[in-house]
């Protein structure tokens, strides 16, 4: 997990960007911006705490470890990373009022049905986990066959989704 330690002032400088790589997640406070580039079949999950202007962003790669979890970062699985994120975000809080926005879950390759279903399964599992954690999904840009880059602003909860196909979309 990455921790944001370099929050700079508001003196007109660009806000510090916290980069979230594949299969990882990060928590940050405003004015930092959380960014995860190039989501394919992976799903970006942004969970926002409006009161504290704080949020977490995960780059989920697969639904669940299944039987094959041997090594590697367990944070790449939806069933592992989402409960962890909500627990860390909710530390010290009596009342958790989080909302989530998700993007990604595309079918990148034309002509391969096995791979086309990974995106759908990711989206399904992410939604299931968020429902279990009682975090409502208030916006999404999922499916299709194009890559997305996701940017999460923590003051307004704005999620900017960029792609070559559709340009900029705001969630």
């Amino acid at each position, binding site marked *: 997990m990455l921790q944001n330690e370099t929050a700079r002032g508001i003196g007109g400088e660009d806000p510090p960007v916290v980069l979230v790589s594949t299969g990882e997640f990060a928590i940050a406070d405003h004015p930092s911006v959380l960014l995860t580039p*190039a989501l394919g079949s992976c799903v970006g999950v942004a969970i926002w705490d409006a009161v504290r202007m704080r949020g977490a962003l995960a780059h989920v790669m697969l639904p669940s470890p299944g039987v094959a979890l041997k090594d*590697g970062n367990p944070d790449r699985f939806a069933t592992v990373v989402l409960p962890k994120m909500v627990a860390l975000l909710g530390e010290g809080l009596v009342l958790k009022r989080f909302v989530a926005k998700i993007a990604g879950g595309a079918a*990148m390759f034309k002509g391969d049905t096995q791979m086309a279903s990974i995106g759908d399964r990711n989206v399904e599992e992410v939604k299931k986990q968020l429902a279990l954690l009682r975090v409502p999904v208030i916006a999404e840009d999922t499916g299709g066959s194009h890559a997305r880059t996701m940017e999460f602003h923590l003051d307004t909860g704005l999620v900017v989704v960029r792609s070559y196909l559709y340009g900029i979309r705001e969630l």
Partner: protein
Amino acid sequence: MRPDSLSDLQLDAIREMGSIGAGHAATALAQITGRPVAIDVPEIRLVPVTEVPGALGGPETLVGAVFSRLLGDVAGSVLFMGVRDALLGLIDILHNRPVGSTKSLGPAEESIVTQTGFVLITAYLTAIGRLADLTILPSRPAFAFDMSGAVLDTVAADVGMKADTAILVQTAFSTEEDRIDAVVLYMPDPDSLEVMLGKLGVV
């Protein structure tokens, strides 16, 4: 078998497979285009699949990729990939016109890249198969054209349960005038890699 547990001798054997494969792919390309095609000494590395975008200019670089599963005696997958300009150049070479003539990647160009990438993949696999005395066949190819990070994410998710490390063969095909940079990612299952190394006598 984990890639980090490979011995120097085994890594050499893998490099040898990579470079023989690339050589056969160049021969195939020369036969398709009817022009001599040389390859640069390929750079062969073992890298985690998710770190490959770094070798191609960042996760948001536009790339085209042809993906096939391995059938026959081994399991795994293989990916032929190039950045947008390299693929447009490849199309120009195939059409026998100056590189830079093709400006966009429509359905017709997509089809040419897919089929050519598939021929190169097949040449590559045939060479490895002959070397290791194994039958390795590619499945029907699938094509993607988008951000390199997203394409490789998807491939990594697909193989993620078994192989997260790929044999990256980075090379350049050059005709008399032009140079096309391309990458072949070979991702055998760890068990299959062991079988192959066993056949080569370097277990």
